Each structure stands twice: as structure tokens, then as C-alpha cells.
């Protein structure tokens, strides 16, 4: 039946991307009574059928290796395992990217309602005062046009809404927030705390987006440790369950899923006035008109979209008069060391699931130390405990402990739960060699030109890896353990994570007061296009060792309220 539709329906605000930034924008604007349209490049999410929380490995024939034994042949079809929440991948069929010669980079895309928040680690750390003013702090990088004090109330709002565990510690590198009660440390974590005490390294309750108390109608955590699989009780934060689904219930949110944005359209005055996108299901080309655009497609996808949005008014890409769109690309420095701790062998069995991930962590502790050979710092994530056995859990011990029969069974039993791992997550200083531009020839299956990545770690990051390795080794040995990870190779480039691998990309549309050197103003609005806002990690002027999501939410919240005021005043 023919459905009458006004020829030019004009949407108020169109948000592109449904992760932490897009979800926050949707929540804030619909709470303020505004009408919002959300474009997501992936499908709708159904937690009850898509989340594999509580599933045992034997409930699926292939136990998680893939229906055709893919995992045994090095074809990782599930980036974080079969049982994890729908999360995306570094390689998506039909949606390639290119990497410039001499560079290495992996571009993660999460095409699903809620984006990466469905599976992320939920580590929720405020950036510190000096993180907002890195140039003032040590001369490296550029300062944000926002101070910690300006951002702090927005962190408060974000924490109040999301629900973050933690304790007030008064550590400058780990600013205190509004915390829910922490979770008791597991046995191996208590041992790490003792080792830290001996080495003068602080090991404090972790700050994680899981509910140790029920808030905003979301149930308290039931401590199954499977947050990464997606949480059917929504006790672990996702933008899909906590922000977008409730917004849909208000009747003020229109969701268009499977919509791949091709370009942002502008009018003759240079204002954004619409989006051209592809309906991925039908391959139909569609256009919607709107009054304001909020881009939250993830740092690299947002930069790609702006660069691909060329017009006579913006021949260099939208809002790119500064030439900074795509520049200053950073990821987090990653390096991990594992060991076996004999004191843990034979630990009386108990349920150590807890919340998904660590209950304690190590914030950066050498902020005031002089004569370090790298700037800034890193935090340390701690792994261990009696995890649910999975395919591959014992391949290491099986390889090391030769033999078979009851001896092998005994070895595995003894090994189980005696492993402790430390993962460093450090700050990368933006550099001129790390950026993305548009590949001059390659397009994806939608005909959209793809990004080309240029990426290089500097000596700053490589030296930090050396420091991580030595520290983790010392911690393991202080616990009486022995390191099982390989020694550091002479070429540290093979010990550091690959760019993009830690999935904390940031910086590609940086903020600033000067339109000549920055893309966005202090409210994340494009200098050149006031009704265009970018609210993922692209606006960040740096990428501190404090995972990006909490700051994405705080900054997006702040930007959304500002946008709402500007719309009300008629400025946008």
C-alpha cells in the first residue's frame, strides 16, 4: 500500500553511530524532549538471543573453535572467542581498509546497536588534570580547550548514570569519581596487592562499569564474570541497553539500523543539512534531511566520513580547513607478561568469577619520578583466577608439561588457577607519522572510499614497554612466581601491540580554540560547521592511559547539552 510521506521530512538531530558517544547523545537529547534519529551501520541488537551469557562450552558442538574448526588453523573468526558479545572485527568482509607501506595498523569496527560498548572491558577511569593540559605538563602534544575542572561535573553525571565501582584514593594520576562499592579482591589479586606493597606499587580497587548496587532500574550484578559476553540483566553498562533502548521507549527516537553513512550533506551556506547513506539490506541509496548532525562513528570512521564529505564549499573534506581531520591518530600502548605462581597451585576451589575483569588494578605510580626515559605513564590490568575453562585454556600447560594419562590430568589440575598476568595500557604521544587519509583508489562494497592508515610508535612508547616488562617480571617474581612469557626481544617493535589492536583509537578530529590547528571547538562542534558535532574519541587531544569510554560519555554529555541549548537559542 502506498504510504503518504511528506516529500522533505526534516529530522531535528541525526546521530551517526550508537556506541558510547552516540548512545549518550541519544539519551541526553531525548531526555530533554528533543526528537532524534539514530543511524547505525550494523543490525539491531537483541540481548536475549544475541548474548551468550551463562552458556557452557559444551552447549555448542564445536565448543567455540568455529563450526569448521577455524581456530585450530589460525583463522580467528571470533576476535574474542565464540562466546563474546556481538562485537565486530578488525577485518570485515567487503569493508576493507589499507595500510601505507612501512606501517602496521588494525582497524576494529563494531557494526551492531551499541557498538563496542556491548563487549568492552568497562574499565572506567577519569582523565587527570594534566591529561587535559599535556603540553603545559611536559611540553608534548597539544592542550585540550577544556580543563579537568570543567570536565569534572560531566564525569559526575556519567558516573552517576553508568554506575562505576571504586574507592576514593586521592591519587593524582587516578582522579576519584562518584563510585559504587568496590568488589572484594580475588585470592591472586590479594597476593598482587602484597607484592605491590613490597615494591611500593599501589594496587587499588578497580573502576569498572558494573553495578554493585541496583541503579536506574538496572539490576545489581550477580557476579558471573561474563560481562564480555553481554549481560542480560544489563548490570554491566552498554549504550544499547542503558541508553538506546530506553530512549526508543520515549517515542522520540527513530532508529535506522544497517545504515552506512556515505557523506554528510551541506547547504549553500555551508551548514550540514542531511546525510547520504546506504541501506545495507536493500543496497538502496537514501538521503535524510536534518537540522543538526552528531557524528559518533568511532574516531577513524568519523574522520573517514568527514574526509569523504567533499563539496565545493569543503573541497578538502567537511570541516577540514585545518587539515587536522584524520591526523593525530593514537591507540593505547599494550604489552603483557604472564607467569605461574606456585603459591597458588592447589588453591581450595571456590567461585572466583566476580565481575568480568579485574577487581584491583595499578594506576600509574611514577608521575613524580624524575629521569624516566619515557613521558607520561601506564596503568596495569591484572588477570588470573579460576576462569571457566575454554578451548585452548590448557594448550600452554599441555605444551610445557609433556606426557599423558593421570600425570597430564594432575599437571592441568595443578596449573589451573595458578597463572597470573599483567597487561600494561600506556599513553601514546601523538606524532606526525600516525594518521589516516583516504585511499586514492580503494572503495568498500558500498562504493565508499576507504581509509588508509599510517602508523608509527615512537621511542617514547617503545621505552615504556621496556618499563612494563621489567615491572611485571618483578611483580611475578616477588610473588614467588616464574615468568612464562618470552623475554623482551631486541627489537621492541615486536613486543608492543600493533596500532589499533587495543581498540582505543583517538585524536582524529582534535578540539582546540584555534580553527587553524583544530577541527572542533571546546563543545566538540566543528569550527567551520556549527551544527556538526563529533563526540566519540576523535575530539581528544591526547590518549592518556585511561581507557577512552568514560571520557567519551562525559564529553558527549557535555556536548549534547550544549547543542540542545544552541538549538533552543536558534544558533544551530
Amino acid at each position: 500500500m502506498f504510504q503518504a510521506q511528506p516529500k522533505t521530512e526534516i529530522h531535528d538531530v541525526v546521530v551517526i553511530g550508537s556506541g558510547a558517544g552516540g548512545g549518550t547523545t541519544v539519551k541526553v537529547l531525548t531526555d530533554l524532549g528533543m526528537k532524534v534519529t539514530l543511524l547505525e551501520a550494523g543490525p539491531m541488537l537483541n540481548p536475549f538471543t544475541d548474548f551468550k551469557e551463562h552458556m557452557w562450552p559444551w552447549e555448542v558442538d564445536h565448543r567455540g573453535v568455529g563450526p569448521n574448526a577455524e581456530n585450530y588453523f589460525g583463522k580467528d573468526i571470533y576476535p574474542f572467542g565464540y562466546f563474546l558479545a556481538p562485537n565486530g572485527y578488525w577485518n570485515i568482509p567487503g569493508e576493507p581498509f589499507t595500510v601505507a607501506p612501512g606501517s602496521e595498523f588494525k582497524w576494529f569496527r563494531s557494526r551492531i546497536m551499541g557498538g563496542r560498548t556491548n563487549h568492552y572491558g568497562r574499565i572506567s577511569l577519569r582523565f587527570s588534570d594534566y591529561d587535559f593540559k599535556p603540553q603545559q605538563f611536559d611540553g608534548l602534544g597539544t592542550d585540550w580547550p577544556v580543563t579537568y575542572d570543567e570536565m569534572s561535573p560531566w564525569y559526575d553525571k556519567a558516573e552517576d548514570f553508568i554506575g562505576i565501582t571504586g574507592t576514593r584514593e586521592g591519587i593524582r594520576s587516578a582522579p576519584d569519581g562518584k563510585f559504587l562499592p568496590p568488589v572484594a579482591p580475588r585470592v591472586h589479586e590479594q597476593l598482587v596487592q602484597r607484592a605491590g606493597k613490597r615494591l611500593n606499587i599501589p594496587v587499588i580497587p578497580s573502576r569498572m562499569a558494573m553495578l554493585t548496587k541496583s541503579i536506574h532500574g538496572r539490576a545489581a550484578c550477580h557476579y558471573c564474570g561474563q560481562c564480555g559476553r553481554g549481560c542480560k540483566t544489563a548490570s554491566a553498562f552498554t549504550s544499547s541497553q542503558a541508553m538506546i533502548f530506553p530512549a526508543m521507549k520515549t517515542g522520540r527516537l527513530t532508529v535506522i539500523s544497517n545504515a552506512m553513512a556515505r557523506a554528510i550533506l551541506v547547504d549553500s551556506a555551508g551548514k550540514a543539512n542531511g546525510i547520504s547513506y546506504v541501506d545495507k539490506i536493500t543496497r538502496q541509496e537514501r538521503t535524510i534531511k536534518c537540522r543538526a548532525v552528531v557524528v559518533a562513528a568511532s574516531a577513524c570512521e568519523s574522520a573517514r566520513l568527514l574526509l569523504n564529505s567533499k563539496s565545493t564549499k569543503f573541497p578538502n573534506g567537511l570541516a577540514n580547513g585545518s587539515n587536522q581531520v584524520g591526523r593525530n591518530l593514537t591507540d593505547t600502548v599494550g604489552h603483557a607478561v604472564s607467569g605461574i605462581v606456585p603459591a597458588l597451585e592447589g588453591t581450595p576451589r571456590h567461585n572466583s568469577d566476580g565481575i568480568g575483569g579485574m577487581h584491583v588494578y595499578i594506576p600509574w605510580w611514577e608521575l613524580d619520578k624524575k629521569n624516566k626515559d619515557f613521558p607520561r605513564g601506564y596503568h596495569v590490568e591484572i588477570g588470573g583466577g579460576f576462569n571457566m575453562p575454554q578451548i585452548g585454556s590448557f594448550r600452554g600447560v599441555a605444551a610445557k608439561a609433556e606426557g599423558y594419562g593421570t600425570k597430564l590430568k594432575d599437571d592441568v589440575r595443578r596449573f589451573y588457577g595458578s597463572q597470573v598476568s599483567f597487561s600494561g595500557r600506556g599513553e601514546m604521544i601523538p606524532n606526525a607519522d600516525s594518521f589516516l587519509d583516504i585511499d586514492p583508489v580503494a572503495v568498500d562494497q558500498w562504493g565508499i572510499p576507504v581509509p588508509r592508515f599510517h602508523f608509527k610508535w615512537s621511542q617514547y612508547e617503545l621505552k615504556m614497554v621496556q618499563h612494563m616488562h621489567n615491572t611485571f617480571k618483578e611483580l611475578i617474581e616477588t610473588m614467588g612466581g616464574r615468568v612464562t612469557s618470552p623475554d623482551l626481544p631486541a627489537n621492541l617493535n615486536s613486543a608492543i601491540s600493533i596500532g589499533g589492536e587495543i581498540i582505543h583509537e583517538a585524536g582524529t578530529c582534535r578540539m582546540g580554540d584555534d580553527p587553524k590547528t583544530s577541527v572542533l571547538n571546546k563543545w566538540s562542534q566543528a569550527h567551520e560547521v556549527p551544527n556538526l558535532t563529533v563526540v566519540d574519541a576523535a575530539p581528544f587531544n591526547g590518549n592518556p592511559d585511561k581507557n577512552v569510554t568514560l571520557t567519551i560519555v562525559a564529553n558527549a554529555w557535555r556536548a549534547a547539552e550544549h547543542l540542545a541549548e544552541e538549538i533552543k537559542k536558534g544558533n544551530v
Partner: protein
Amino acid sequence: MEDQSRRDLFKIIGSSMVLSAAGSGVLSPALAQHVHAEVAAVKSLSGGPNYAPKGFNRHYFNTLRKLADLIIPKDDHSAGASDAGAAEYIDFLASRNAELLAIFNGGMAWVDGYMRKTYGSDFLTAKPDQQTALLDKLAYTKNHTPEVAAGVPFWTWVRNMVVDAYYTSPAGVKDLGFVGNGAMAVFSVPKEAVDYVMSRSPLA
């Protein structure tokens, strides 16, 4: 748990509702606990004597069962790998991956050939001490000789996959003493476990 709650539970789990607005349509911890109790009951994953192999012929399937039980035997602690469905797991995957099927068929043909040459019978019908004599040569680097070198890659495959299969089965999970995948109202750590570890550590 009352039957009514159970029915509610499965209704919720199986729900195809697209929207799970905050505070509604979510599992309570008590209900979640019940799911875990349902699935954690230890059960055999073995297909039993009537199982029809999908990838291997009957002889190789039985050889694989034997190998599985030698790698992870039944002992007074727990069941063995064949009862945990290790052979069925490998057979299922081999039926779906020609490369894997060739590795296992070729490996078991090599094993039979070695046994026939050395003892005059294939692996399955050889005496237990003859079977373990070969496995001892394959399993320990110090025993590797040119004579068994061609069997070592297969040994690594079968051992890894049997280990994978066993510890992802109810029997293996029980053997390890994994007691998670449940629901707790408050997360706590038993003092007994803390004391055990601290007293054994250099940080007591």
C-alpha cells in the same frame, strides 16, 4: 525454585523481545542461578555405542576413543576423555574440515602402520603395554627418534584436541573444580583459600 518461576525464566531467556528497557525484562539473580544449575549437571557427552561417526570410519573412530582415554584416563577423581565426548568432538570437526580429517586419518594410519611393523597388530588390538610404549616415544622429547618422528605432529594434534575436548566438557569442568558460572548476591572470597595461598607465598 517454583515451577512458575522456572517457566518465567525460560520465557525470558527464550524471549524474542527486541527491547529490554532498563528495569524490565531482565533476569533476576535467583533466576540466573537456576539456569546454571540446569546446565551444570555433569552428563556424559559420549554418543555411546550406537554413535555413527560423521568423519572417520568405525575403526579410526574406535582408535580415537582409545587414544583419548590413554591421554585423559578415567581415574578415582573423574571420568575419562572418551566419556567426555572427545572422540565425538574431533569426529564432528573432522567431518567439516578436510584438512583436519586428513591429519587424523593420516596420523592414525601411521600409528597402525608402526604398530603392525613393530608388534604385528594395529593399535586397537595391541596389548596395553605396547600401546603405551609407542605413546611414551611420542610424548617425551627425549624419546623422539627418527623412527617415530612422523608420528609426533599427529600426537600434538590429538593430545591438544583431547585436552580441549575434555576440559570443555562437564566431566573436565568437574575435574578442575570450576564452581563458577553461577549467581552470587555478594561476591566474597573464602578465608581458607586466602590463608592457603598466603602461607605458601614468600609474602606471608
